[in-house]
Each structure stands twice: as structure tokens, then as C-alpha cells.
């Protein structure tokens, strides 16, 4: 095998027959269970969060926050592909989130307001950018990588704050988003019909939830494809990975691009949801937020980062808003900081890891 | 008088049990050899004595001049008068020869000894003495240690250890990687140091070389002492030599 030139085996997949393609896509292992479970949770989440008697009063949630949590969840999920699996800490992911948001926004103003097309445009730009920035920053790991990504993202921030302000609206943010209807028929803001409306609320939520589901499925697939294994191998022992014949650099770049892809999807959805692009979406604090969410929820897991996004946004939007948290509301930043540090210190695997440990302790490690 | 007393020590790297119930003693003033094959546990023994971690000593005790030094941090052990010249020499490649020697002296600075319970009584050489013993080092005084030849580095490592207040010098394979001529130089240096009253525990794979200068020898295999006697006894014990030393 090894004396055949490598490209031959790559092209095999490309020229695969239709049945092989289906073979590739066929669900395997736990996949169906995971996706179905996620779908159920996604369908019930807004109801429990914003409308269900008693529960929603306790939670004090609301519809648009539910949507926002999913959007950031996608972002964090993609970020975790990089941090949790490949072991690369980027402090510049705002570049992908923000540029996708701007692209989708500008696209909606100039080309088409179709949410799906906006998403495609934003994501495509983010992927392209991830490819370029990844190419430039992946030369070294650790602190150098963190700083380089940070530098590039800051550069983009300052670009759009002044020199490109004619396009981005600078400090005012991009306000000319013109989101159209889904499939040309369903207004995103309008409620879903019948019981779906009670459960999930708006078309917007349904749209975001479907994308989220696809992203979870995609994430699950990636982690259970050879990539998942290779990523972990690279994180642990890069040199050895190179010496079993893997092109470490390309895999790294690929994990960077994939995480850029998720960030791009999320960034585009963010515009569709908010019809607005704040300049801060490119600022390094946005990168910092996704880092916090991911670590809080738990790196190296599929759902941890989404949980992290939920907790973060909950604190940011509900605890900070006073009632029933008046007591601690002004200190919500401080509280998040404390929780974050405690998590790294005591539960390096985050809240999700902590839940799992607790579950394992209860079930005696079975299951 | 017994200077070092290793009593029934068990040492581990993580979960691997390396030293098994190992006991040995070193008498004041002698040259004691610790022999054994590749991976027998010689380095582990020295590291355990010197307080380097890993390995972790989980059982047994190590006493030096009657004081218990088991589990003591490496820097404290060194200040009791035990100097280790480790495998691969470990000179500071980014410092000059002079600085490599000077750093051993720094351990006696007040900033280092302040509020530490220390009992060194050992002799420590002045830089001048060291240069007299190792004239090559004087020539290379301002050269970065990383650019020295292997033999010179070995000299430097020994010299550095001697500049500590040393009662007991632990030498881990001092001849490794040295040309035979240089091996002779190092041998001479070890004997000279011994004559000055420093006790020496010498680890070697090369039994012949060690027996030549040692008074007494231990042979370890798989973390256990399998022979214990004078150098002459070992020379005559063909079976032990064949079985455990492959000679």
C-alpha cells in the first residue's frame, strides 16, 4: 500500500459511486440516538425556557435568548473542535464570527435577503478567511498561535472600525441588514403554526434549531470520522503523528477551517437573528467570550460548549438584568470570571465533564 | 563509619515498581561501585538518594550521616553534602565554563541558605583548585559549556559537583561516551578526589572499569541487590559477572 503514491487513495473517494456516497452518509453507531435526542431537546427548549408555566417563571427566560444560545452554541461547538480536540487555543475567532456576520449583512443589503443564501455567503467568507489565517498562524502552537490569531483578528477589527467603515458602518455597526423570508414564504419573526408555535415559537427559532441540529450531527460525524482520532493524536504527540505519515500541518489547518466553518455559520445566524452587526463582533472580547463558554461547558466534548454558551448567556442576559437576581446583578462579570477560574482549576473538563462524573458516580460508571 | 544507609527502599516511576526492597551502605572515604546492566535500576537508585523526582520512594528509608533524608527535596539533599553528577552530564549549555562552576558556589549564598536547616560540613574546592585538577577547564574558561567536547563536559560536571560542599559524590556513568584516553583522565581525577577524602558512589555498566578503582561493589538487577562484596571478590565471582553484568 505504502509504495503507491498517496494521491491515488485520495482520489478513490472522489470518484466513489453513488452507493458509496450513501454508504458514507449512512448513520452509524450512536449517531441516530444522539441526533434524535438533540432534536427533542431543541424542540422543547424554548417552551421550557420561555413559556412553560412555573418552569419558565423560575428560569425567567425568553424566546430570543433561546435562539441566541443556540447560535453561540454552534460557535462554541466549532471552537471546541480546535481547542478541545486539536489542542490549539485561538484568541482570534472573532475574526470568523464577525466577518461572517458582516458578509451576511452586506450580502442581504446588496444581493439577497434569503436567510439561507445569507448563511451560505457568510459561511463561505469565514471559511475562506480561516483558510488564509490558518495558513498564516499555524506555524507555531501554544502562546505564539494564540497571539498570532489575536493579532490578525484585531487587525480585522481596526480595519472595519475605520478604513472599511464605509462598508461596515464603523462604530455604529452595520444596521442595513434586510433579512427576507425563509424560502420566500415564512417571515422569520412570525410564529410557527399550531403546537409547534407553542413549543418552539418563531420560524426564526425553528430555522436556527434545524441548523443547530445539522451542526451537531456534523460535529458528531467529524469526531467519529478519522479526523476526530487524528486531531486528538496531534494534540497529544504531534511529532509522532508526523512520523506515522500524517500530514499534521494539513490536518491542523483543516481543524482550523472546520472550526471557522462553524463560526461562520453561527456568525451568519447571528445577523439573521439580530439584523444587526455590532463592531464588537470582531473585537478580541468576542474571542474571549467563546473561549470562556467553551471552557466553562467543557472542552473535548460535543455538548459541553453548547451548555457553556447557555450558562454564559444566561448569566449575561438574565442574571445581569436584575430580578430575581438583583442582589448579584451588577457583579455578573465578576461572577462569570470566578466561575471560569474555578472551572479551570477544579473541573478542567468543564460543567459537562462534571455532570458526567456525577452521573458516573451515581450509576457506578455503567452506561 | 557508615555515611549512607539505604534501607529496604521501594521506588516507583508512576505505577512501575523499579527498586524492590533495595538496601546498601556506603562507608566514609571509600569508592563504592554500583553495577548492573542497562535498566537495572542504577540511575533510579542514585536519583532516589539525591532526592530527584521522579522516582517516588514509597517505602524504606535513606539515611545520610545518621539523618533521615528520605523524601527530602533535591536541593536540601544537596545541601547535606551529597552531589550528583547525573547521566549525560547535564552541564548548562548556555553558560560559560566559569559560570557553570560559579553556580555551584551560589548555593552557599545567604539568599539560598536563609531559613533552611543545613548541615554541610563537607569540603568544597575553590575554583583555583578545580582548575589545577582540570587544567583543560581553565583553558576553556570563557567558552560556552554547550560547545565543549563530551569529555570536557564530563570534567566540568564533576568539577561542578566538587565545588559543592561534598561529602558524598554520586557519579552516574562518568565514562559513558568518552574516548579511552579521556576515560583514563577521568579515572585519575576520581582517584584524586577520593584521596582528598570525598566518598564516592560510582555507577557503571562497564564493570571492568569500575572494579579497577572501586573498594567495594554492589550489583543490582531488576531493582534488587544481587551481589555485595569487595571489588576483589567480584573480580573472582565469575558467575555473578556473567549473569548480571554480561561480562
Amino acid at each position, binding site marked *: *500500500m*505504502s*509504495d503507491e503514491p*498517496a*494521491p*491515488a*487513495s*485520495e482520489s478513490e*473517494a472522489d470518484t466513489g459511486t453513488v452507493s458509496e456516497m450513501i*454508504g*458514507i452518509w449512512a448513520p*452509524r*453507531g450512536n449517531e441516530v440516538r444522539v441526533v434524535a435526542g438533540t432534536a427533542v431537546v431543541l424542540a422543547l427548549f424554548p417552551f421550557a425556557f420561555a413559556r412553560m408555566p412555573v418552569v419558565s417563571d423560575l428560569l425567567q427566560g425568553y424566546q430570543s435568548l433561546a435562539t441566541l444560545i443556540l447560535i453561540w452554541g454552534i460557535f462554541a461547538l466549532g471552537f471546541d473542535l480546535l481547542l478541545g480536540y486539536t489542542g490549539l487555543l485561538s484568541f482570534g475567532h472573532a475574526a470568523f464570527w464577525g466577518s461572517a456576520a458582516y458578509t451576511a449583512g452586506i450580502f442581504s443589503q446588496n444581493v439577497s435577503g434569503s436567510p439561507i443564501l445569507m448563511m451560505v455567503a457568510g459561511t463561505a467568507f469565514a471559511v475562506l478567511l480561516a483558510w488564509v489565517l490558518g495558513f498564516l498562524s499555524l506555524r507555531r502552537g501554544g502562546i505564539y498561535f494564540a497571539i498570532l490569531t489575536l493579532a490578525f483578528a484585531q487587525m480585522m477589527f481596526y480595519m472595519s472600525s475605520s478604513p472599511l467603515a464605509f462598508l461596515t458602518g464603523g462604530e455604529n455597526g452595520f444596521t442595513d441588514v434586510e433579512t427576507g423570508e425563509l424560502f420566500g414564504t415564512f417571515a422569520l419573526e412570525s410564529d410557527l403554526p399550531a403546537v409547534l408555535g407553542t413549543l418552539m415559537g418563531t420560524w426564526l427559532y425553528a430555522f436556527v434549531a434545524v441548523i443547530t441540529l445539522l451542526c451537531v450531527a*456534523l460535529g458528531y*460525524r*467529524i469526531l*467519529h*470520522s*478519522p*479526523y*476526530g*482520532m*487524528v486531531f*486528538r*493524536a496531534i494534540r*497529544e*504527540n504531534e*511529532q*509522532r*503523528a*508526523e*512520523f*506515522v*505519515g*500524517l*500530514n*499534521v500541518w*494539513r490536518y491542523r489547518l*483543516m481543524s482550523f477551517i*472546520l472550526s471557522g466553518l462553524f463560526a461562520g455559520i453561527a456568525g451568519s445566524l447571528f445577523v439573521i437573528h439580530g439584523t444587526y452587526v455590532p463592531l464588537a463582533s470582531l473585537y478580541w472580547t468576542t474571542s474571549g467570550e467563546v473561549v470562556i463558554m467553551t471552557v466553562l461547558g467543557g472542552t473535548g466534548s460535543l455538548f459541553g460548549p453548547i451548555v457553556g454558551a447557555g450558562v454564559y448567556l444566561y448569566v449575561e442576559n438574565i442574571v445581569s438584568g436584575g430580578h430575581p437576581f438583583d442582589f448579584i446583578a451588577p457583579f455578573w462579570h465578576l461572577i462569570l470570571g470566578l466561575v471560569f477560574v474555578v472551572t479551570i482549576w477544579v473541573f478542567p473538563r468543564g460543567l459537562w465533564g462534571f455532570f458526567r462524573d456525577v452521573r458516573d458516580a451515581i450509576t457506578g460508571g455503567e452506561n | 563509619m557508615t555515611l549512607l544507609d539505604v534501607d529496604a527502599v521501594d521506588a516507583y*516511576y508512576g*505505577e*512501575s515498581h523499579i527498586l524492590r526492597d533495595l538496601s546498601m551502605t556506603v562507608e566514609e572515604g571509600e569508592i563504592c561501585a554500583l553495577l548492573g*546492566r*542497562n*535498566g537495572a535500576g542504577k540511575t533510579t537508585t542514585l536519583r532516589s538518594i539525591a532526592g530527584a523526582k521522579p522516582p517516588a520512594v514509597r517505602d524504606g528509608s535513606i539515611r545520610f550521616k545518621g539523618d533521615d533524608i528520605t523524601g527530602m527535596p533535591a536541593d536540601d539533599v544537596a545541601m547535606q553534602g551529597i552531589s550528583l553528577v547525573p547521566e549525560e552530564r547535564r552541564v548548562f549549555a548556555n553558560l560559560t565554563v566559569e559560570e557553570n562552576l560559579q553556580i555551584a558556589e551560589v548555593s552557599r549564598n545567604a539568599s539560598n541558605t536563609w531559613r533552611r536547616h543545613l548541615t554541610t560540613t563537607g569540603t568544597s574546592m575553590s575554583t583555583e583548585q578545580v582548575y589545577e585538577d582540570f587544567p583543560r577547564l581553565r583553558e576553556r574558561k570563557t567558552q560556552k559549556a554547550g*560547545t565543549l567536547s*563530551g569529555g570536557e563536559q564530563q570534567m566540568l560536571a564533576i568539577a561542578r559537583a566538587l565545588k559543592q560542599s561534598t561529602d558524598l559524590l554520586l557519579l552516574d556513568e562518568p565514562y559513558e*561516551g*568518552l*574516548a*579511552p584516553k579521556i*576515560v583514563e583522565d577521568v579515572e585519575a581525577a576520581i582517584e584524586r578526589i577520593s584521596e582528598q577524602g570525598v566518598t564516592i558512589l560510582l555507577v557503571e555498566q*562497564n564493570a*571492568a*572499569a569500575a572494579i579497577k578503582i572501586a573498594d567495594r561493589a554492589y550489583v543490582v*538487577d*531488576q531493582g534488587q541487590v544481587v551481589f555485595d562484596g569487595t571489588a576483589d571478590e567480584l573480580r573472582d565471582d565469575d558467575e555473578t559477572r556473567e549473569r548480571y553484568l*554480561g*561480562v
Partner: protein
Amino acid sequence: MALLETDGLVKEFGGLVATDDVNLSVEEDERVSIIGPNGAGKSTLVNLITRRLDPTAGDIRFKGESIVNRDPHEVVQMGISKSFQTASIFSELTVRENAEIAALAAEHGSFGFKFLEHRDSLTEVHQVATDTLDAVGLLGQAERQAAELPYGDKRRLEIGIALAAEPDLLLMDEPTAGMSPEETEATVDLVEEVKRELGLTFVLIEHDMEIVFRVSDRIVVLNRGRVIAEGTPDEIRGNPEVQEAYLGGVDL
């Protein structure tokens, strides 16, 4: 044609010449050992061949093709595998995954866009991994985390990873360093067995003369970066220069 050839290979570190005009050639199916005192440049030579270091001058050819401009992973893809001096494994992955990684690289090239393909569908990779683990006697522990293995088994796994890459040429840098005599024995047996079964060529670097003289067809002696002698075990045994430089008068 020689499988591996080096031609006037030189490597300098600053002023130090670690590899000095080495012309080495390894025939297919041959077992070559490289010996020499510490610092002779053995590891450097291996690192040059595996492309971890760039040569200062000279050429390296594998299967007649120059590899000095290739990346390390490409060289592995061409069929040169290396086992490391210390157990270099993926300790958080399971034993099986360790082998699978190597098999994946061998079966599917150094990189592929297979991120949508489930691992379970890569049957041939599983097969190679299973076979390799069987060969190194770790199949029973396949689902254990590699970190949990005893040290000796880690070294076995290390060799297993090198083998799962399905090499034509295996470079082994002190594969038995730090092993107990029994483990050493077992490893040597393993190497010999693999050699017999897979017919692979290997280059061994070892300080343990017993092993070297037992398994080699040819021995190359390095000193200060230069080849000072080369020949069958018997020839080397009797070479006075080697005696002087390395064996140091030890009677063998």
C-alpha cells in the same frame, strides 16, 4: 539497487560536525546495525533520514529517489518508519486507536478529506490495526488506554505503531533502552519475527552489543560523525580501530 543510500551526507551544528561525509547503503532485506559511542552521530543520522533534520550537504536516496526535499510525513508515506528512543505513543488514545492512526496514514495517505466518513466504515484500517496489535501481542489490551500500559508494553506499542505504518524500511533507535533483560529479549524476538514474516529491512541503533551481534547482517561503526568501520559482525569484532574507539578493550 540499494533500498537506502546516503551520499556524502554532512550535518553541522554550529561548529560541530555531527555527521561527517557518511556514505551508507542498505540493501533490501538487510539488517544493518549502527553502533558507536555516545554522541557519535547515530541519532543525528536517523534524524536526517527521517527528515527531522536538514542535511548541510549530501544526498539521501530511498528506492532510488532523493528524499532531501521531502517532508517527514512524505518520507513515512514512501515507506520509511521509525521507532523512537523513548516510548512515543498517544497515551490518551486506546491501544487500538494508536495502531489505527498509523494504519490510517498507511492506507489512506498523509491527508484526506474524510471528515464526513464514519470511522467504522474503514474496514481495512481496522484489519491492519488488529493484525499489528496481534503481532506485537497487544491485541488482548486493545481497548485499554495506552497510558495505562506497563512500560514494556508501551515500548511494544511504540514498535507496533511503527509497524502499522507498513514500512519497507524500519529505523529503530535504541528500541530496548530502559527495558529489563526479559523485555529486551522479547523485543529482539519480536523484531526478528516481524523481520521474518514481513520481510522488512531494518536499521538498528543499539548500545547492547549482545543484540547487535545477534541480529545484524552488517554493522556500521560511527565515531565523531564518520564511518570508521563497516562489515559483518565477525569483521567488526576483530577490527582494532573499533576496539579502540568503542569497545574499549572489553573482551567479547
